[in-house]
Structure formats: structure tokens, C-alpha cells
């Protein structure tokens, strides 16, 4: 740019007011140092009603900024689970007795452990030393031995690749008594239009080792036979394509399409289905059995709007998989600034899904057992609502503390009418739970 103007002596612009400044040897306020480390921590308490699952989960995440847009993050999560989890069987007016998953083997009258060969030629041992638990009449059968500890570690490295591109690579590990997982992920983001548009691509790969307590049951078999095998595994791979667009000074939107495929053992080894006869009596139980592959696609749209000093966050997601499940999610948060150091953030989330094609609340005794089946409420048709409130405060030392309370309610849909001996029982009570979380974030 060229601007040729006749020269002139620079005037002593506001020299008087600034003589002090120019003459003084006052140094710049160097008490402001850039913080290289950022710590984000939270403690979660999760509790479901009806003596179901309870979890306590502390999480700590550390991020180190190396300058020039390079940063390293590590996160450690510890999860302690207790309580009971529904085992998939229906409630009954009579007490029901089940074996805990740790059931090791059933001894034949001859005293010798028996073996059984599956149709695919796999030899599994029949079990002995079964420990039993009884569900009271009218109660939803819960496996009371659902306690576990999980430790998870994840790390990620982010850096720039040229002026307009960023790279992120990471890994994660997770370990609990009956499940171990290791994963890798990588993502690239490229800016366009003066960084108003960003295209991103991400991929992840995960390998899981499933070691059910007492061995993985042979899927779909008669539960009372306790036919169990060994360990299982599965692998998951996924890709994500995203567009982030600045729509105005106040509005940022992101649209993502993701696809993932999971191959291997997808069944929940501890879950059953009740076999019900024409009179509504439970005449038996079967282990569930899910397909060994699952592919999912989802489209996700998020909007962030700066309204005054507040921020509105609205996201929508649509998911479809090859198990016949379709879901819709709508999530709304409004961060309301109160004064200079405090905010309150109400939250509402609506979720809806339909049932998997192989989902059955129970099996009919008259029908032959299907190949694949599950009564896991996670795969059933339901609506869910979450209402929550978060309060955050910035303290004098610039750290931020927060407290969050959310209530989650899941309501089953399309529940078949209770007939015969099932009358008067709530066949699918849904789920009620709350999340209570405290958080602390600071830099140094």
C-alpha cells in the first residue's frame, strides 16, 4: 500500500500528558505471565432410583501449552460402580432365583464337569459352583453384584501443520474387571475463508477385550444350563467429516457426519430374556444374543450463539444403525452471566429412540427361540428427558468452581400389555437417575 504525502514534522501529540510515561522507568506489568498448564477436574456422583446403579467418578485432565499452537493433554478417570443392574428378565408375582454371573460350573450327578459342543464346533464347559440371588415378587430383577472399578487414561497431542491446518492425535486405555479397551484417534482440520470455514476429518480405531466373569455364555441358550465359554473381543472403527462455519459475529455452527462399524462380541454377557407362556407364567430364561456386527451413521449439528454476554448452545443429532435403531437428540443450554464472576446454565435434553429389530421385552414359549434377541432396555423404544442446572463461579485466584445437578428420566414406549399372570406388574418401569457433579478448573 502506498501513501505518499508531503513530509511534516511529527507534532508532540499529547506530549504533556505523556511526559510522565515517557520519562518514567515504570516497567510493564509483568505479573501477567501466560499460564502454560491448565487443570480441569470434576467429581461425579450418579445415582439411579430403585437401588439400581450408583457411580462415583473423579476425573482429572491436564493440558500443557507449548506455544505456537502445540499442546499436550492427558486425562485420568476413575469410576466406581455399585448397586444393581436389570438383568433383562421380567418381574413376576412369584420370587425368581438367578445365578450370579460368576457362576463357575455346574456339576453333573456323576461328579464330573460336563462339556458341551456348540453348533460351530466350539467346546464349552458346563459350570459348577453357582451362587444364587432371589428377586422378590413384583420387583424388577436386578443383578445385585454389579460392582466394578474402572480406570481410564487418555492422551492427545495437537499441533499446527502449516498456516491453515491443525492435527490432533491421541490414544486411550480403559480397564475394568471384565472389559479392557485400547484406542487410537487422529483428526485434521483445515481453515478456509479467513478461518470462517473449517473442514475436519477424524478417524478412530478401538480394540476391546471382553472377559465376562464366569466366561461368556453361549448366546441364546437356555439360561439354566449355564453353558459358558471363555473370553471375547471386538473392534470398532469410525470416521467423521465436519464443517464448522462462522455465520455471524455471534453465531458459530458445526455440522458433522460420522460413520462407525463395530465387529465382534456385541452381546451383554450378563443379560437374559424371560420365556413367557400363554398364561403369563415365566417358564424359563435365555441368554441374550446380539448380531456380531453393528454399523451406525449419525448427523450432528451444533449452534453456539452469543446473546449479549450470554451464550446459547443448541445441538441436534440424528442416528441410524443397522440394528434398526433410529434416534433423535435435541440438547439446549443457556449460559446466563450473573455479574462478572458467576454464571448459571440451565439445560434441557430430549432423546428418543425406537427399538432394535431384535429387541423383545420377553420371548414367547410357543415360538422357537430367535437367533438374535435382547431385552436390554438400552435397545428398546423409549423417550428420555434431562433437566439440569449448572452454577459456575470464578474465584479471586482466577480459578473456576462449578456445581451441576441433572435429572434424567427414561420412559419406555410400546410396552406390550401385561396379560395373565403378568397383570399388575410394571413390565418396563423405565429409568430415573440424577447426576451431581462438582468441578474445579485452574491454570498455572
Amino acid at each position: 500500500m502506498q501513501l505518499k504525502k508531503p513530509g511534516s514534522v511529527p507534532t508532540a501529540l499529547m506530549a504533556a500528558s505523556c511526559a510522565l510515561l515517557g520519562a518514567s522507568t515504570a516497567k510493564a506489568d509483568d505479573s501477567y505471565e501466560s499460564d502454560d498448564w491448565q487443570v480441569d477436574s470434576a467429581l461425579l456422583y450418579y445415582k439411579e432410583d430403585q437401588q439400581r446403579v450408583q457411580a462415583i467418578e473423579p476425573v482429572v485432565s491436564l493440558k500443557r501449552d507449548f506455544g505456537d499452537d502445540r499442546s499436550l493433554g492427558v486425562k485420568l478417570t476413575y469410576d466406581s460402580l455399585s448397586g444393581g443392574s436389570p438383568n433383562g428378565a421380567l418381574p413376576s408375582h412369584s420370587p425368581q432365583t438367578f445365578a450370579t454371573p460368576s457362576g463357575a460350573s455346574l456339576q453333573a450327578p456323576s461328579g464330573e464337569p460336563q462339556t458341551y459342543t456348540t453348533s460351530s464346533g466350539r467346546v464349552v464347559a458346563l459350570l459348577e459352583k453357582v451362587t444364587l440371588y432371589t428377586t422378590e415378587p413384583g420387583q424388577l430383577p436386578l443383578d445385585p453384584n454389579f460392582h466394578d472399578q474402572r480406570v481410564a487414561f487418555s492422551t492427545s497431542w495437537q499441533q499446527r501443520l502449516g498456516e491453515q491446518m491443525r492435527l490432533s492425535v491421541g490414544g486411550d486405555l480403559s480397564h475394568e474387571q471384565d472389559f479392557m479397551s485400547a484406542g487410537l484417534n487422529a483428526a485434521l482440520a483445515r481453515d478456509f475463508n479467513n478461518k470462517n470455514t473449517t473442514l475436519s476429518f477424524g478417524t478412530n480405531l478401538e480394540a476391546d477385550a471382553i472377559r465376562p466373569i464366569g466366561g461368556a455364555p453361549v448366546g441364546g441358550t437356555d439360561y439354566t444350563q449355564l453353558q459358558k465359554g471363555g473370553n471375547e473381543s471386538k473392534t470398532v472403527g469410525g470416521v467423521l467429516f465436519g464443517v464448522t462455519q462462522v455465520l455471524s459475529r455471534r453465531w458459530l455452527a458445526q455440522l458433522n457426519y460420522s460413520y462407525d462399524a463395530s465387529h465382534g462380541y456385541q452381546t451383554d454377557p450378563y443379560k437374559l430374556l424371560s420365556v413367557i407362556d400363554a398364561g403369563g407364567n415365566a417358564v424359563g430364561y435365555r441368554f441374550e444374543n446380539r448380531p456380531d456386527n453393528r454399523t451406525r451413521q449419525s448427523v450432528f449439528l451444533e449452534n453456539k450463539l452469543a446473546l449479549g454476554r450470554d451464550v446459547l448452545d443448541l445441538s441436534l443429532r440424528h442416528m441410524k444403525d443397522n440394528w434398526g435403531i433410529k434416534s433423535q437428540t435435541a440438547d439446549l443450554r443457556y449460559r446466563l452471566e450473573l455479574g462478572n464472576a458467576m454464571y448459571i446454565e440451565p439445560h434441557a435434553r430430549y432423546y428418543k429412540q425406537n427399538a432394535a429389530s431384535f429387541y423383545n421385552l420377553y420371548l414367547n414359549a410357543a415360538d422357537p427361540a430367535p437367533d438374535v434377541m435382547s431385552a436390554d432396555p438400552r435397545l428398546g423404544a423409549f423417550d428420555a428427558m434431562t433437566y439440569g442446572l449448572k452454577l459456575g463461579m470464578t474465584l479471586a485466584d482466577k480459578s473456576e468452581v462449578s456445581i451441576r445437578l441433572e435429572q434424567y428420566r427414561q420412559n419406555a414406549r410400546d410396552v406390550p400389555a401385561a396379560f395373565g399372570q403378568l397383570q399388575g406388574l410394571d413390565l418396563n418401569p423405565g429409568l430415573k437417575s440424577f447426576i451431581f457433579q462438582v468441578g474445579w478448573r485452574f491454570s498455572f
Partner: protein
Amino acid sequence: MTFAKFAAVCAALIVCASARGDTTFDLASYAGKVIYLDFWASWCAPCRQSFPWMDSVQREYMSKGLVVVGVNVDQERALAETFLKQMSPHFRIVFDPKGALAETYKVSGMPASFIIDRHGTVRFHHLGFRDDAKPRLDAELNTVLAEK
């Protein structure tokens, strides 16, 4: 050069960052001077690294005729004032909240800096501020300052 003279020269060239700060930038009034024109904002993290460097460069090359001008593009003046209070720069600050000056110079990234020679021509143009860019910026300043 005695300290008093030095201070007087600085005083003649520096505008302090205050609410009465300048909102205009008249290139013509700088003829004969080399200008380091920097566009910054309180919300721009790399700008925090650039301020101490711009301070030191202003001090070092003032006698050779360098004027550092920091153009602020914050839409909320209060945020800029807080930033200036923390950084206490000793170079000229111009406020451009509507972005008219940024538009004129076709700023395409933040921060953006322009090295303008004694005849008012933009000689070097940089986007962003990184530590490893400092030697190059120094070299460019020396080149332009050496010219008549």
C-alpha cells in the same frame, strides 16, 4: 543523548493508552519515520506475546526513527483498557473499534503487522505473532530503518 533529551523525544512520539487515546491514524504525519503498525485485540492471545517485544523494539530503535503504533480493534473499549493496564505498553495506541483502519489495510488475520517505510510504503506484512518470527522482524526493521 542525555536521559532528559531521550525522555523528551519519547514524550514527543508516544501517546499513552488512556480513554483519551487517539482514534485516528494519519500516515502523512509520520513522513520520514518508519512505522511498525500492529493490529491487536484484548481477545487475541498471541498479542500478549507481541506487546513486550514491540515495547523493546520501540525503545531500541526510537533513536533511528521507528514508531510503533498499536491499533486496537476491540468493540468493547473496557476490555482493551484492562489489557493495556496489564501490559503497560510504551508505544502509541490507536483505537479502531469500527474496524475502518483494519479495512483500509485489508487485515486478513489477527494479529496483523505492517512495516511502513519513511515514504509511507508498506514494505513487509505479517499475520500472526510467533516467537521464532522475532529475528526476521528485527532484520526487516533494520533494513527499512537503514534506508533514507
